[in-house]
């Protein structure tokens, strides 16, 4: 093999770089999944602490729901949402969702940061005012 030492050195460096992230993380405890905080004054006031749909549905589908809501409100002019339990809600991120979930940094951002997603809702919609802790 001509220039064998160069090839082998190159291979060693390549394997080192390629496996570095795995080796670096080995033995470290996984980052625990975040627990979205629902401790807000508005939610504390509720007798039964529940969102407009079930927790599992909201957890998995809230982004789809918000997209649907956006189209219903802006494009069709429909503003009232009848939930599966018969309650009616105004479809509004800023005025309905965030009224209860007034802790955006603890509720929205924690999961979104964990999942490394950056939704652009807040470029336009005004986030509720939170006291800095």
């Amino acid at each position, binding site marked *: 093999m001509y220039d064998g030492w160069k090839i082998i050195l190159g291979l060693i460096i390549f394997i080192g770089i390629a496996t570095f992230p795995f080796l670096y993380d080995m033995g470290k405890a996984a980052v625990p999944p975040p627990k979205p905080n629902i401790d807000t004054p508005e939610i504390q006031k509720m007798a039964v602490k529940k969102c407009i749909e079930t927790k599992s549905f909201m957890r998995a589908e809230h982004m789809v729901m918000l997209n649907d809501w956006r189209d*219903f409100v802006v494009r069709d002019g429909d503003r009232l949402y*009848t939930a599966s339990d018969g309650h009616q809600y105004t479809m509004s991120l800023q005025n309905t969702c965030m009224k209860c979930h007034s802790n955006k940094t603890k509720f929205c951002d924690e999961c979104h940061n964990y999942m490394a997603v950056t939704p652009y809702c807040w470029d336009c919609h*005004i986030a509720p005012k939170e006291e800095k802790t």
Partner: protein
Amino acid sequence: MSINRREFLKIAGSSTVLALGGLSVSTLLKKSLLEASQVMPDPRALVAKRWGMVVDISKFKTEEDYRVCTEACHRVHNVPNVGTIKEEIKWIWKETYEHAFPGQEDEFLSPEIKHLPFLVLCNHCDNPPCVRVCPTKATFKRESDGIVMMDMHRCIGCRFCMAACPYGARSFNYRDPRPFIDKEKENLEFPTRMKGVVEKCTFCYERLAKGLIPACVEASQELARKTGREPGLIFGDLEDPNSEVRKILSTRYSFRRKPELGTRPGVYYILG
């Protein structure tokens, strides 16, 4: 076991039908899971076939009359005050006669009219050129009431609509508008805009949905009540012969901005 051609075709056919049936049932079930609940318009909403406005410019006597309308609008919609004319963002504003009605400035026009500022806004055209050019359908005419709407979620900031609008009713956010919005007066119930989108008057669709008249009209009526005069802005359904706007239009001489372009504007002007 051997299988003849006929048997094979039978099995293949029936399994295809079953699979298709199963697929459609499963999508139906999935859909009902997502859309089990329904949506509807707010019963409080004001409805019309086609919203329109009459601007009675003879009722605008003082600087204050113009200011209350513009300020009310810009406050409820979080319109930033950028400070330079080039990057100015405006939904309803004051314009000179020459600029608002070019081509109609006659040589010997009375100086009062020539220098009379007119209150101008988006005309909510029946045949809106901005809608025709929008490549993403971010701006569209609502079929239900003729309002020319903006869907900020879809706007890509190409500014075709600004080039198309013959009334200059559209403004572009050249920079993040947030720092230019007065934090004290911010309306927390309405979004702001972001850098790179076009905005304009939407006839307060968010207020109409709650049963309120547009902010500028409300401000004009309030001032009129205070000063004991008649309001300069009148809002109503152009398709309803008994509406306030139609009553005024049927008794007074009215004119519109650049009607020769065929956009059929929904904002009418009267000189008293």
